[in-house]
């Protein structure tokens, strides 16, 4: 971008963002290559390629480049790219991706099966050929065929083959060789074309990836065989058997394709949770429209904000909205993970994609399309599933230099084998043959696919599993960090407690000359103008008892103190002790008289609120925020997991301690102001702890952001809490334990995967190079190497898929 701004002499252009679907990427090396290419296109500010979602997110300057040019740049690297379809919701994008993945899988499978069958037939056809070569060249070439795997197969199969199909041995060797050549060309061009095309495209960009290894390995074997076929004299005149490796080329291509087929299937399965979320969206909605209030079925896309939607028993709710009439229990498990249906009545929100059970109701559509809760969850999950975990960097760094190093090792293997074989008396020809097989085996076994898949597949499966449990983890970074958490800080209000205080006690000061209803009416009238949670509790208390409130005059409020105003000419002051003392001279003695009551209330976790009417203390109202029914068990679970649980509260220590006692929290930090929460989290971090902060995401957003992992506890509808790394769809704390347990499991899976991917190469490469040969005579055939390579990718992906069986305790 920097090289384009100056010329026009204008200010910086606004960047445009585009997501381009990219097909054909199979490993981390492919991904980094497409990314590098895009970043080099003039006018591109940034590009981030996502291997598993198969797309590239690009920020570019529209004056300098176009989307078409970006697509061309990707195609130029040998991968497929399409112009993005604009204005699609996350759900539609997911459906499109599913279709692409399905097509890719079906095509891979067909190619793998066909080339596998051709390869197997070719192997049988090569039997007489090897025997023929072996005998024609005499006992001096007993080493032929050099490929030990082929030799083993040949020795075990030849006798029966001779008995079953003696005519095979009657076919002239040249005829068989040319038939094999033709079959190999078919397999390479039709089934293996993508390897060669991509390897070539990579080569032009000075890059090398797994395609390079396969292309160079099979290409070398093919060229060698081709020369042996068309000019066998070149070999025989030097005393070398003109061996061909056609069957090896075909079977390697078939096995690598088989590996890719399994991978493609596994990749589809890693995103199955996302797919089932996307499928929740019904296609049509029954709405009431027009002057005659007709009921009509319309596609969900045609539903407009404000439309009244009808839902009958057993139907899926088509869009988000608010119930207008009717009642029902709604099964929201697919979105919130809550297994029991939730009772809903007029005024309450319903979420599109959830399942209505027995009742029928009408509701007004609110958020639609890309803004709907379901679309937002799917979008968030797609972003999370493609995000990179920090552990990925290790794999990325290695795979960046891996391929050139492996090619170097393969060349070194060839040289060492040649020289040692030659020096120990083998002919130059025999030495070449043996050295050649070892070099090819090194290249084939060292494909870095497993390394590229180790971390991303675990992230995908884990985030999908989280979504099923109502735990939205916003990416690999959060996932890995949450696994390291040792301290969980819980906000009190709205997290441990319901966050909706209720009035528990009302007491009148003897001799105040008011009754219960008068006191409440006066207090509620003043509090009506306040937005404080305590005020809300008092107003609701009044409303529930049918106590009428009036408009208050000269209303003033002090944050964290109280409110005052005039109702029907009476001066009303409501607030805590210091607020009353500050605004009312001489009330101290009256407060002292009820202090015992107030302290008793505070010790049982209630907040005492003093009320004065016309300058005299008139009453004491106790307000408490009840603890959620699920909090205690959830906190116990966190402690059993070895986590240190800390509760933060802005309340008086008496109140906070009482709540902590009831909830089972040992460490309490009370009297914390909203901005004090950040300091408290930082203090814990300075002690070397990895802190997860759990809050409602509204007034504790800074603390969520400060914490290593911010967990927003939700109500099922606010998905996109920006500051949070993890959003819980349910309001109960059990999700915190689920999130941390899932993250721990996932981190372990990622480590296992990386270990297996690395150990496989650490063991495989030396064995293929022949280090075991001097002592044990073990040499890895290129065919076995390709089978092992396919197996390693499949085992890593399968290990990630085990996370799908994760059960929260």
């Amino acid at each position, binding site marked *: 971008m920097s090289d384009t701004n100056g010329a026009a002499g204008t200010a910086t252009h606004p960047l445009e963002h585009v997501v381009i679907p990219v097909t054909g990427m199979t490993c981390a090396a492919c991904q980094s290559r497409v990314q590098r290419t895009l970043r080099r296109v003039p006018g591109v500010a940034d590009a981030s390629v996502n291997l598993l979602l198969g797309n590239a997110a690009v920020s570019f300057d529209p004056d300098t480049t176009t989307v078409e040019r970006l697509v061309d740049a990707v195609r130029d690297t040998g991968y497929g790219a399409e112009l993005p379809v604009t204005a699609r919701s996350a759900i539609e994008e997911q459906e499109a991706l599913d279709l692409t993945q399905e097509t890719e899988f079906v095509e891979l499978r067909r190619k793998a099966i066909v080339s596998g069958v051709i390869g197997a037939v070719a192997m049988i056809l090569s039997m007489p050929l090897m025997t023929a070569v072996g005998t024609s060249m005499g006992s001096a070439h007993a080493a032929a065929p050099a490929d030990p795997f082929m030799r083993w197969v040949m020795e075990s199969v030849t006798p029966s083959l001779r008995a079953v199909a003696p005519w095979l041995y009657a076919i002239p060797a040249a005829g068989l060789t040319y038939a094999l050549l033709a079959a190999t060309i078919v397999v390479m061009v039709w089934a293996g074309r993508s390897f060669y095309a991509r390897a070539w495209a990579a080569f032009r960009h000075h*890059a090398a990836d797994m395609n390079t290894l396969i292309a160079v390995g099979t290409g070398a074997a093919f060229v060698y065989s081709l020369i042996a076929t068309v000019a066998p004299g070149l070999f025989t005149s030097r005393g070398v058997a003109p061996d061909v490796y056609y069957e090896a080329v075909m079977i390697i291509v078939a096995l690598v394709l088989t590996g890719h087929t399994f991978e493609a299937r596994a990749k589809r399965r890693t995103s199955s949770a996302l797919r089932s979320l996307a499928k929740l969206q019904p296609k049509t909605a029954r709405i009431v429209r027009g002057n005659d209030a007709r009921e009509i079925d319309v596609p969900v896309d045609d539903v407009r904000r404000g439309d009244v939607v009808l839902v009958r028993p057993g139907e899926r709710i088509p869009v988000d909205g608010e119930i207008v009439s009717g009642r029902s229990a709604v099964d929201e498990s697919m979105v919130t993970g809550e297994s029991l249906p939730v009772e809903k009545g007029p005024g309450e929100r319903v979420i599109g994609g959830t399942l209505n059970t027995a009742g029928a109701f009408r509701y007004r559509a609110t958020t639609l399309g890309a803004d709907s809760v379901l679309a937002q969850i799917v979008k968030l999950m797609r972003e999370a599933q493609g995000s990179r975990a920090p552990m990925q960097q290790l794999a*990325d760094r290695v795979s*960046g*230099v891996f391929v050139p190093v492996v090619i170097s090792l393969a*060349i*070194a293997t060839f*040289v060492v084998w*040649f*020289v040692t074989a*030659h020096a120990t008396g083998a002919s130059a020809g025999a030495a070449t043959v043996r050295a050649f097989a070892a070099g090819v085996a090194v290249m084939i076994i060292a494909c870095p696919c497993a390394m590229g898949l180790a971390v991303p597949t675990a992230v995908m499966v884990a985030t999908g599993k989280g979504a099923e449990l109502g735990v939205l983890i916003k990416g690999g970074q959060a996932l890995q960090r949450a696994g390291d958490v040792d301290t969980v800080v819980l906000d009190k209000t709205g997290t441990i407690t319901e966050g909706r205080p209720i009035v528990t006690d009302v007491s009148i000061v003897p001799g105040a000359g008011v009754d219960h209803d008068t006191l409440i009416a006066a207090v509620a009238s003043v509090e009506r103008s306040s937005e404080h949670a305590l005020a809300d509790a008092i107003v609701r208390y009044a409303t529930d008892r049918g106590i009428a409130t009036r408009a208050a005059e000269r209303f003033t409020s002090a944050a964290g103190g109280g409110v005052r105003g005039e109702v029907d000419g009476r001066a009303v002051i409501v607030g805590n002790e210091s607020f009353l003392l500050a605004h009312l001279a001489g009330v101290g003695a009256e407060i002292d008289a009820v202090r015992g009551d107030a302290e008793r209330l505070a010790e049982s976790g209630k907040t005492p609120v003093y009320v004065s009417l016309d300058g005299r203390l008139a009453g004491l109202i106790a307000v408490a925020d009840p603890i959620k029914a699920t909090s205690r068990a959830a906190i116990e679970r966190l402690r059993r997991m070895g986590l240190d649980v800390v509760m933060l509260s802005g309340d008086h220590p008496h109140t906070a301690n009482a709540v902590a006692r009831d909830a089972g929290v040992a460490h309490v930090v009370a009297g914390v102001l909203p901005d004090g929460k950040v300091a408290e989290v930082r203090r814990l971090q300075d002690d070397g702890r990895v802190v997860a902060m759990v809050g409602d995401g509204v007034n504790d957003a800074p603390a969520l952001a400060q914490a290593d992992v911010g967990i927003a506890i939700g109500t099922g509808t606010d998905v996109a809490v920006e500051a949070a790394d993890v959003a819980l769809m349910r309001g109960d704390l059990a999700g915190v334990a689920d999130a941390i347990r899932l993250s721990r499991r996932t981190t372990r899976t990622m480590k296992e995967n990386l270990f297996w991917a690395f150990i496989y190469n650490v063991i495989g490469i030396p064995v293929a190079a022949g280090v075991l040969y001097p002592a044990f005579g073990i040499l890895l055939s290129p065919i076995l190497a390709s089978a092992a390579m396919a197996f390693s990718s499949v085992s890593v992906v399968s290990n990630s898929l085990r996370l799908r069986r994760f059960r929260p305790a």
Partner: protein
Amino acid sequence: MDTLDWVVIAGGVAAIAWVNWYFLLRAGDDHHHV
């Protein structure tokens, strides 16, 4: 060790040098983006 061995060794060293030059050095800073 005869001449052929030395030719193969020299060829191998040259090939390794070329592979690393072509893929690592000429690709330059790109690999730091990986």
